[in-house]
């Protein structure tokens, strides 16, 4: 294993895939010579040239549409929408075009494209640069949604996303780019649709993903010292959802809390809770709970920003209330 930052792991994935397949190319704002605002694409422009690492004007709707078109003629575009908030400008192309082409055309063409984007609060960037909007994509048949929490997952899942025949919304988190972790030396592709048990436990299951995985692991460590054994299931891929892993963890512990940063109302937590109720009601010792973002846009001030998303303390408290 090599110690690597999340953003380096992403870069390695892109680099290896570009090396392997000349049909992979990148588009986005200031991703070329400048290497991207979060430095994910640094060095790739120099290595692969301006034909494959392409800066775009500020035209999210159309460069996303371009990815659809390029995918339809056989390429594998990977585009960067710098903040998931800006993906709102490209929703027609993502929801009505990319997600539907395979279906509408009766299987005449798939759309192998990746929309890399980034969400979450935590840097005082306020309401239009801090949202967690994965639920909007999760609801759309035809889209896959991936949200890795570690460098290794970022690496292996991005490679799988690029190789996937269908459109993938790949959502990074601004607080993860600089986090470090071990990444396998040998080339590794992590299949989409498989959750990862980041910590085994027997008393309570925390179902989570992306940056909240780190907070859940912190909470689990704290709870261990109080004698509570917490299992942390990192979904990694939201869609397709790894129901089996979630269900078997739920059956084992009988107590489940879903933890996500996105606003609770209409967040994916409700969907998973309902699924658990539908499929494992008799194995549950009580209601599935949700610990999730507050029902508000994210404010600029850091104190109140912090209050909008679940903290380690919130998770610890939630678990304690449950056991």
């Amino acid at each position, binding site marked *: 294993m090599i110690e690597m930052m999340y953003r380096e792991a992403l870069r390695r994935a892109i680099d290896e895939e570009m090396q392997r397949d000349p049909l992979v190319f990148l588009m986005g704002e200031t991703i070329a010579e400048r290497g991207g605002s979060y430095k994910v694409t640094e060095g790739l422009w120099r290595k692969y040239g301006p034909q494959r690492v392409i800066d775009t004007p500020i035209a999210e709707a*159309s460069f996303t549409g371009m990815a*659809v078109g390029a*995918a339809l003629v056989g390429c594998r575009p990977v585009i960067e929408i710098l903040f998931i908030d800006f993906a709102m400008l490209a929703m027609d192309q993502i929801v009505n075009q990319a997600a539907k082409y395979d279906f509408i055309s009766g299987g005449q063409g798939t759309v192998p494209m990746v929309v890399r984007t980034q969400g979450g609060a935590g840097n005082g960037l306020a309401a239009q640069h801090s949202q967690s909007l994965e639920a909007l994509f999760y609801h759309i048949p035809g889209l896959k949604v991936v949200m890795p929490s570690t460098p290794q997952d970022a690496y292996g899942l991005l490679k799988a996303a690029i190789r996937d025949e269908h459109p993938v919304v790949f959502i990074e988190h601004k607080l993860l780019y600089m986090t470090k972790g071990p990444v396998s030396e040998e080339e590794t592709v992590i299949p989409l649709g498989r959750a990862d048990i980041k910590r085994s436990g027997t008393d309570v299951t925390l179902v989570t993903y992306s940056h909240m995985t780190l907070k859940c692991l912190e909470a689990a460590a704290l709870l261990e010292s109080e004698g509570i054994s917490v299992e942390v299931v990192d979904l990694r891929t939201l869609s*397709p959802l790894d129901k089996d892993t979630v269900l078997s963890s739920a059956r084992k512990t009988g107590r489940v809390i879903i933890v996500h940063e996105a606003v609770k109302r209409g967040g994916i937590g409700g969907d998973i809770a309902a699924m658990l109720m539908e499929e494992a009601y008799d194995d549950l010792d009580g209601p599935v709970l949700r610990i999730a973002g507050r029902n508000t846009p994210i404010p600029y001030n850091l104190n109140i920003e912090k209050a909008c998303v679940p903290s380690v303390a919130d998770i610890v408290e939630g678990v304690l209330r449950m056991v």
Partner: protein
Amino acid sequence: MPTPPAKGGSPRPPEPILLGMYRSIYATRQFELKCIELYRQGLIRGYLHPYIGQEAVAAGACAALNPADYIVSTHRGHGHCISKGADLKLMMAEIMGKATGYCRGHGGSMHISDKRVNNLGANGIVGAGIPIATGAGMGIKVRGTDQVVVVFFSDGASNNGVFAESLNLAGIYGLPVVYLLENNHYAVSTPIECATGCCDLAGRGPAYGIPGICVDGNDALAVYREAAAAVARARRGQGPTLIEAKTYRHGGHHVNDPGLYMDPAVLAEWKARDPLLRTRRAIDDDARSAEIEAQVDAELEAAVAFATNSPEPSVDAFLAGIEDR
């Protein structure tokens, strides 16, 4: 400044091109008249947007393309589809919602695509095909082939933001895309004069750094000439062109719209310039045109029979395949 439509007649293209264009125009016309009939009989549902009156645009533009070139189409897409070489059987089956149709009955009139001839498909979202075509152009560049894309859209779409964004993008990257703006003067019932203060739509090309040309869209020969020039430039790596083809619908926006808002006098003028009659006149050989017509009539009859006798999609098979999406 956009080039004004050429005065007088257009120079004759090679004979097979001319005959091919007539075949496209005649087939589109007959196909749609049949669709309207079937619609009235309740055998076709949903939205159906006839292209009648505009056929010369698709015929002329597609005549300038190789089979490997791509087109991107619209909700009013039958003409593009047929001109690019569609199989009338599969089209009719799709529009009748049959399992044997191009899209297995998933798409209908507004969504036909045809992979075999590189028709990337119609679209229910006005303007959405424009960036998709632009991206196809980028894909061609990345893959290093000498293909070209023609994207069809109409005046209404040209007021949508993706039009401007896409011209601009194609301009920067020098993409092999021909933007074929079919100015039929209406978006549903809204005349183009009410939808923009600038009706020189070709002039928007230069505003985004690409040439803009205006042509008589009811003159298949003229459309062919301009399209061929633009396609040749694109194929040589000289980048995109915007072509505005002025034309007119012979009826309402869709099969259920009587189009009462259209000025009958203006409509009559355009009908007098019917692209079908003009192209047949250009051939000026009744035997040749009659031969084409007979072939198409037979093909169409077979298509209707095929579609009529085809099965509906199976509900069970459909449901079996969906849970992983």
